[in-house]
């Protein structure tokens, strides 16, 4: 039986002449697990909305063709009816979770279906059992980690008992441990449901999927079985899709296998093992931060000391709740006044621990994960000039133009920063953060939810900043990004520093702390070194 059948689908949003999605034919069999991938803005979300019925029921525009889910025409079936056939888990659980307690959240859908309370109870129990969140039952949803919250979001959809489950980048905001738990659920659901996983990171989901569909410019660019991916690596790269690095080398060297160990062996035989990325040489310490933070009740949150070297990119990694963000907040003076803290910040040999945020900000810049919150001005030019004006820097006559050029913002000078694309907004946020004398820049989860294209752009920006003399701290879960761009990694666990070294050194044992090494590293490492992995 067909779970999904699309014929002649064409949809364009109101006010747009171009089709956001155009699919002649697509069908997915009952029980299949399919990966839908593609660049941001390529049409993946529009396709998902067409399947769930959000288009045309909630989002309107020019709609042609038919989409059938288990034989029901989406356009002619109410959203309520469709919700029992198809469930959707969105990328950001924070915006998806509506209720304060886990139990209420999971019960929300069945309650809307006006089921008897006994039936709701049994559905909630079932969904909680499948997702393994019974320990979270009484917790407030806002206090959950990203991974926990995403599992709650999955449970909330499963309680509707849909036959087709769509997961739209379900792991983009969570740590590897949370990711592993989400995939455990998917593994279990694979036996029972038809699954569509929308994901940028092909490497992550490859072991779970039967089929890969690549969407580009609103059209199906590629539709292949997953084991066939290795033969289509060039096409994937051509449109900027991230594929496991060993696939690329296997393809380049004519190795017809997707087994990493085998590819490494063959490459070694041929002497073709690629060199590791270049790392910056050890340099003098610019920033030395020792942070001891606990809650008012004495629960430790962070107890670590981290050094940052000049013109280095330092990545801080670890599980959700390991103390990474607390560390950054301690350095910036953002800690909640309810917390007990002892903070020592030495910047260039000068103790700035007692300084107010305003003074720390003279030399340290911070770009938060939600960088849109920093864009307070009406034009890009005013945004970037904000610090210069506020600090009355007279010697900064050309600084504005310099920054505009450096971040390719000159053409956007008079645009409202909030109206720009994601990549452009991030560039404005970085440019405005470093506009004055800052020497250290800290980024909190800059790679979260970004596709390959945007991550590469970010990586290049970081390298450019490093070359321009800045020292950078990046908090991230993205091992591949870190391997490619960081000079050093610090891994935190339960608030303490447990590993500190080059990516090559740290990734050998980082798995113990839920930091999984990327295929880029594994390809270059000897098997015996990873015996415990």
């Amino acid at each position, binding site marked *: 039986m067909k779970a999904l059948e699309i014929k002649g689908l064409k949809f364009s949003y109101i006010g747009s002449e171009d089709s956001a999605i155009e699919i002649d034919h697509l069908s997915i069999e009952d029980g299949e697990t399919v990966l839908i991938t593609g660049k941001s803005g390529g049409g993946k979300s529009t396709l998902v*909305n067409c399947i*769930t*019925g*959000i288009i045309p029921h*909630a989002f309107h525009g020019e709609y042609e063709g038919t989409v059938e889910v288990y034989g029901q025409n989406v356009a002619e079936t*109410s*959203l*309520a009816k469709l919700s*029992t056939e*198809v*469930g*959707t888990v*969105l990328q*950001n659980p*924070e*915006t*998806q979770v*509506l*209720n*304060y*307690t886990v139990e*209420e959240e999971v*019960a*929300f*859908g069945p*309650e*809307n279906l*006006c089921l*008897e*309370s006994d039936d709701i109870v049994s559905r909630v129990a079932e969904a909680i059992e499948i997702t393994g969140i019974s320990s979270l039952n*009484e917790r*407030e949803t806002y206090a959950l980690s990203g991974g926990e919250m995403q599992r709650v979001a999955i449970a909330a*959809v499963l309680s*509707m008992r849909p036959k087709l489950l769509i997961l739209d980048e379900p792991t983009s905001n969570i740590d590897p441990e949370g990711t592993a738990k989400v995939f455990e659920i998917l593994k279990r659901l694979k036996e029972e449901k038809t699954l569509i996983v929308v994901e940028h990171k092909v490497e992550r989901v490859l072991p779970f999927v039967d089929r890969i569909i690549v969407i580009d410019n609103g059209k199906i660019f590629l539709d292949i079985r997953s084991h066939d991916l290795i033969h289509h690596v060039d096409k994937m790269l051509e449109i900027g899709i991230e594929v496991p690095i060993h696939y690329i080398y296997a393809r380049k060297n004519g190795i017809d296998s997707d087994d990493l160990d085998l590819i490494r062996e063959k490459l070694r035989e041929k002497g073709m093992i690629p060199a590791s990325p270049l790392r910056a040489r050890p340099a003098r310490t610019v920033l030395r931060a020792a942070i001891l933070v606990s809650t008012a009740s004495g629960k430790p949150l962070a107890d670590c000391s981290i050094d940052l070297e000049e013109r280095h990119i330092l990545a801080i990694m670890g599980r959700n709740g390991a103390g990474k963000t607390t560390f950054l907040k301690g350095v910036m003076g*953002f800690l*909640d*006044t*309810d917390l007990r803290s002892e903070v020592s910040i030495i910047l260039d040999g000068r103790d700035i621990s007692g300084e107010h*945020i*305003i003074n*720390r900000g*003279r030399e*340290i810049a*911070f770009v*938060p994960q*939600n960088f*849109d*919150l*920093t*864009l*307070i001005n009406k034009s890009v030019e005013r945004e970037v000039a*904000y*610090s210069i*004006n*506020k*600090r009355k820097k007279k010697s900064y006559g050309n600084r504005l133009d310099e920054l505009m050029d450096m971040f390719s913002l000159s053409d956007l000078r008079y645009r409202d920063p*909030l109206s720009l694309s994601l990549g452009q907004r991030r560039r404005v946020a970085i440019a*405005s*953060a470093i506009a*004055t004398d800052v020497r250290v820049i800290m980024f909190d989860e800059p790679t979260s939810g970004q596709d390959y294209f945007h991550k590469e752009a970010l990586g290049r920006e970081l390298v450019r900043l490093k070359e321009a003399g800045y020292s950078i701290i990046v908090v991230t879960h993205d091992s591949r990004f870190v391997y490619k761009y960081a000079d050093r990694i610090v891994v935190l666990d339960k608030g303490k520093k447990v590993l500190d070294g080059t990516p090559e050194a740290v990734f050998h044992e980082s798995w113990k702390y839920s930091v999984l090494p990327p295929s880029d590293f594994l390809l270059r490492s000897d098997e015996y070194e990873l015996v415990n992995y």
Partner: protein
Amino acid sequence: MNLLIINLISWLIFFFGAAFPVLIMLKAIGLTGFMKVTRFESYHTFYYRMNPAVKIILGIVVMAVAALTIWWIGALMTVVILLTYLTLKDGKRKFATGFFLTMMTTIGTTWAFAPYTPYAILNEAFHGSALTSLWVWPSYFTVMGYQPDLTVQGLIYGFQISMRFTAVSLMSLVLVMTSTPSQVLRSLNKVGVPISITFSLVIAMRTVPRIFEYIDTSVKIQFMRGLGSRAPRFLRPFYVLVGAINGIVPVIVFLVRGAKDTAISADTRAFRAYQKRTYMRPATIGRVDRMAFSIIVLVILITVIAVLMGFGRGIPYNG
């Protein structure tokens, strides 16, 4: 007195009523304090076990009593409700926040009334007794014919009026802090409020603490970027306000971007599939609710007796 000093003091007193509450708001409560008193946290004491509908009724009764009776009954209710904050989760902190919020309301309201209440009303409220002047502003402070004179009676009068607001403000926060939006939704639907309206309320209850959280981040980053860097230290709290105002637009845009997902999340889980919803745990009336009802009845009785005994609303307020 020197004319310059007179003018200086006059302006200081004039702005005190607006600036001091803002200072309390920013210094003593802070944006994170507002976040804490607008967010539900699980706990086990009586407020948390009470049916939200009963809490809503209690709030309405408190409002009616404060409006209908003499000021000190409102003051008494304020004290009692504030003391019950100690039973909430993280009670001391919430008590302190409630106390500062009450102070803000009291000072703000007192100052809003004290200088502008005409002598004629004050004379009537205080049985024609002589007014004790505390400060006379220069004549250019006269607004629409009111006397530019701050009197003890004016301050008392303003204070008494503020007692009409404080109890109900505290009671409203109790509802928000001790009921989940879903519980409120259940109760309001039961009394016939349409789902779409109650759902908006639910989303508001979920969003308000986030607004404070995001504005707090925005303000801190503005400080890092130099906001208030050239101002004297004592003015920094006011720059928090400036930063908060600057942060409103990006915070709203950020939230609106997420609202699309919220809508999809609700729609794809059959929200509004039917006019009504069923509930996993239907709202029940328990022992705590019956006790609360007894208190409500008692309060209404006291109000009636107080009004009959002449302690009802009206002049004189100072009883």
